[in-house]
């Protein structure tokens, strides 16, 4: 029983890491623009699918992963320039629909490029499972965990230690004030989109050897990432990471102990419960309404 629990925990943390990376992307974009980017999951899908396609075209894996990430960053920048910037300051519903439109569009492009089949990426370093107490661990899980820790640390250091990162944070607190002290808000916006597209793509490439990828793979991943960001309190990057891990573990425990068919329902029941008791997430700012 204990071994089983350990196994669920390991699986949950692996999957939760992906949610954490996607959630981090949500938080970054929300900070810079007050927009929840529903195309975030499509970045994950694009990263994975492009890497798979490049690998099939003969590129070595590290190069394929790198190029795929860069291409996804480019897509993120294009999205920002042509769909978000023209609608800056629009109501929440409008921006939600624009990004949903973008998500459908990107899914449509992916379907044309790669069809409706499932594709898979080979594991980075073999598939011989590692014994960990009574649980088994795939080497790919170690890659996911290691790189997630690395990426989250880097993003954290970037936000807290570098001038550029601090400028990005300043935008999230007060955009007008940030502009007044000489921060170029538009550049920050592009930075946020580029960064979160890159994070999404990397998350997609990391998880692709474990779960399969298809043109639709981004939908659920994007929603789980959004849930992670919301559970953590939207706009709180580290809250999103914690939210993602929590979600992954709970989902895995729920699937293992209760019913695997209800996995997604369990995740969202958890999200609803959090919101009913903490309407601004676990680590969110308590905002008073201005009259």
């Amino acid at each position: 029983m204990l071994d089983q629990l350990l196994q669920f925990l390991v699986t949950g943390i692996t999957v939760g890491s992906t949610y954490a990376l996607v959630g981090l992307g949500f938080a970054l974009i929300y900070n810079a623009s007050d927009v929840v980017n529903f195309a975030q999951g499509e970045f994950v899908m694009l990263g994975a699918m492009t890497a798979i396609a490049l690998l099939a075209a003969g590129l070595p894996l590290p190069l394929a992963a790198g190029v795929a990430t860069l291409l996804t960053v480019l897509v993120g920048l294009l999205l920002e320039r042509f769909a978000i910037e023209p609608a800056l300051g629009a109501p929440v519903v409008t921006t939600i629909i624009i990004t949903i439109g973008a998500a459908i569009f990107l899914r449509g492009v992916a379907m044309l490029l790669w069809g409706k089949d499932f594709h898979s990426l080979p594991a980075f370093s073999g598939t011989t499972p590692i014994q960990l107490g009574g649980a088994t661990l795939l080497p790919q899980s170690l890659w996911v965990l290691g790189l997630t820790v690395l990426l989250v640390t880097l993003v954290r250091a970037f936000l807290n230690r570098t001038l550029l990162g601090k400028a990005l944070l300043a935008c999230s607190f007060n955009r007008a004030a940030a502009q007044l002290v000489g921060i170029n808000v538009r550049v920050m916006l592009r930075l946020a989109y580029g960064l979160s597209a890159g994070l999404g793509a990397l998350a997609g490439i990391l998880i692709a050897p474990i779960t399969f990828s298809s043109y639709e793979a981004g939908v659920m991943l994007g929603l789980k990432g959004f849930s992670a960001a919301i559970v953590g309190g939207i706009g709180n990057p580290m809250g999103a990471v914690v939210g993602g891990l929590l979600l992954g573990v709970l989902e895995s425990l729920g699937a293992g102990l209760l019913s695997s068919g209800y996995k997604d329902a369990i995740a969202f029941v958890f999200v609803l419960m959090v919101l009913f008791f903490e309407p601004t997430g676990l680590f969110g700012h308590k905002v008073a309404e201005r009259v």
Partner: protein
Amino acid sequence: MRLAGLYACAAVAAALPILFPDNYFVTVVGISAGIRVILAVGLNLLMGYAGQISLGHAAFFGMGAYASAILTTRHAWPALLAMAAGLAVVGASAWLLARPILRLRGHYLAMATLGFGIIVHVVMVQATRWTGGPDGLAGIPPLNLLGWSVDTDLRWYGVVMAATLLAVWLSLNLADSQVGRALRAVHGSEFAARMLGIDTGRAKTRIFVVSALFAAFAGSLFAHQQGFVSPDSFNLIVSVELVTMVVLGGMASTFGAACGAIALTLLHEGLVVFEDYEMLIHGALLMAVMIFLPQGLFVGLSQATRRLWRAARRGG
């Protein structure tokens, strides 16, 4: 005068099958457009007037449809009684859900409604014993109104159009009632509305329930008309489409929502010829409309025409 638009719609709805008898676009597309108009008009009450987003409205649509499907096929209930039971179940669930969920704002509300929609969809797929699982339920009998069986396309067209006009009429009246004005105040500023003595929690709860009932009613009609329900008709994409209809037509306008629903139905029919490109074009159009006509097609275009008309009169 206030209901002139409604009468015009009624006239068009009645004239179409006479002008184009046995036309696929009237009797088949028209029925599906009608059902979507009911859904969009109901959602608009919540989104357009009260300013509360719901990304899970397909759940109520589905609950209405499944209630009718399960009660008529498994327990042989008469259709109307099943429909009433479905409305009661949906009304009660919406009422229970309303208080905790409508305390949330903006993106948190979007998340919560989205989550609710997904939970209901998962239950539809997984609770095979009641719902038939992913395969759905078939063999739902046609609607029977006091012995008059609705079993031809033309009869269905008549019933759905009557239901649609009823929904539009209800929505127009609600929007202009005291409830409607209270909701618009909530939309403007919830805090200010509370200062004016409006019980905002109660106002929001009521409209959430009404909006869910519209969806359940549409769901029941849908189940009987199709004769078959499956979870695919009530997934997240459907919820998103419903929101799109309301925003596409123009928020806080009953006719706007109706136009949005009709426009999106026709778009789907039109895009079928593009096959694989359908998704791509659909996404691009959504983005384009929201970027260039943020008030929506109906409201944006009607404002533009009004401006042109005024300019023309001044010029002449």
